[in-house]
């Protein structure tokens, strides 16, 4: 089960009910893990903007429809801290992405790499476009054949485009 922070965002009604039930049943149970309240410490503006660019390209591993930059999930906060730390240790963006992919899989990348496992993902739209083009071509050809006996001027006006 994902942590309630996420459930509430995704499913506000059920989340609220769940939160109320939990509040009633388990008053002593804190629903969030311990967190470090210190904000991220950037060394300069360039680092901050690089960090935000990078975090926007990474998917939150828990709230999967949010980027790492947007998510308020606990693990996202931890990962942001980790990413900043790696940046400050001098790793480049590709290395940081590789670090996360090795641990969480390619799902963390909003733009997956082009490789045998993802060719359908990248080529799917082109494939569909091609199939649609073939269908249109077939229709046009067939119509051209059917209309051929009529004077050529008429067909042009009829099609309009």
């Amino acid at each position: 089960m994902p942590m309630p922070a996420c459930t509430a965002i995704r499913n506000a009604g059920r989340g609220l009910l769940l939160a109320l039930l939990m509040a009633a049943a388990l008053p002593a149970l804190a629903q969030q893990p311990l967190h470090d309240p210190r904000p991220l410490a950037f060394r300069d503006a360039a680092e901050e903007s690089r960090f935000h660019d990078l975090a926007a390209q990474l998917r939150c591993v828990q709230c999967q429809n949010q980027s790492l930059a947007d998510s308020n999930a606990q693990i996202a906060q931890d990962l942001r801290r980790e990413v900043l730390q790696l940046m400050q240790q001098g790793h480049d963006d590709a290395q940081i992405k590789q670090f996360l992919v090795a641990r969480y899989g390619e799902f963390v990348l909003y733009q997956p790499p082009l490789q045998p496992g993802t060719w359908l993902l990248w080529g799917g739209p082109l494939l569909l476009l091609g199939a649609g083009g073939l269908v249109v071509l077939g229709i046009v050809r067939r119509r051209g054949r059917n209309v051929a006996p009529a004077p050529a001027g008429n067909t042009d006006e009829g099609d309009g485009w």
Partner: protein
Amino acid sequence: MSESPAPRPSRPLPPVAIVIGVLFFFGLLGLMIYGVMKSGDPQRDVLPSALIDKPAPAFALPVLHDPSMTVRSEELRGAPYLLNVWGSWCAACREEHPVLTRFAESKRVIGYNWKDEPADALHWLETLGNPFMVVLSDVEGRTAIDWGVTAAPETFLVDGSGIVRWKYSGAMTQQVVDEKLIPALQKIEKAQGNADAGLHGNP
């Protein structure tokens, strides 16, 4: 696609277009039914672990009950173990607790106490009972990132040579244990048995 334009109403559609249209319709219907069926599945959003069949990440963590002691990942080699990620703040871990307790009666289960106040964790174990052979404490949660943990509870099965063989996200039920965990464990034991036999067979 092809059946929709119907530019000349007088002309009947070719049979091929009708067949394609019907197939397309049923394809979409099937996709919709699949989506609706899957919407109730708690495992719907679970990502496949990137660690399966890879070496378990190295760690060195203090023992919850005695922080002066440290357990290293290498020290756990030799026999399969289950690593359970939990926290006293995690409601689903409480749900999973009886199932884990039953499993731990005969197998090695290591607790990984994730981002938790040690006092709360100890109190939790005292109240519910401690199913773990040893509990490792990670207040900072750095090791969890190496393991690709997203939320508690998560459970990893690591074989005797330190390779991650199976993972489950969310609260395990008895059904998950019987149908997934035990077969995965048996597979490891069988592979281990074969390796041992091979070792002894060749002088």
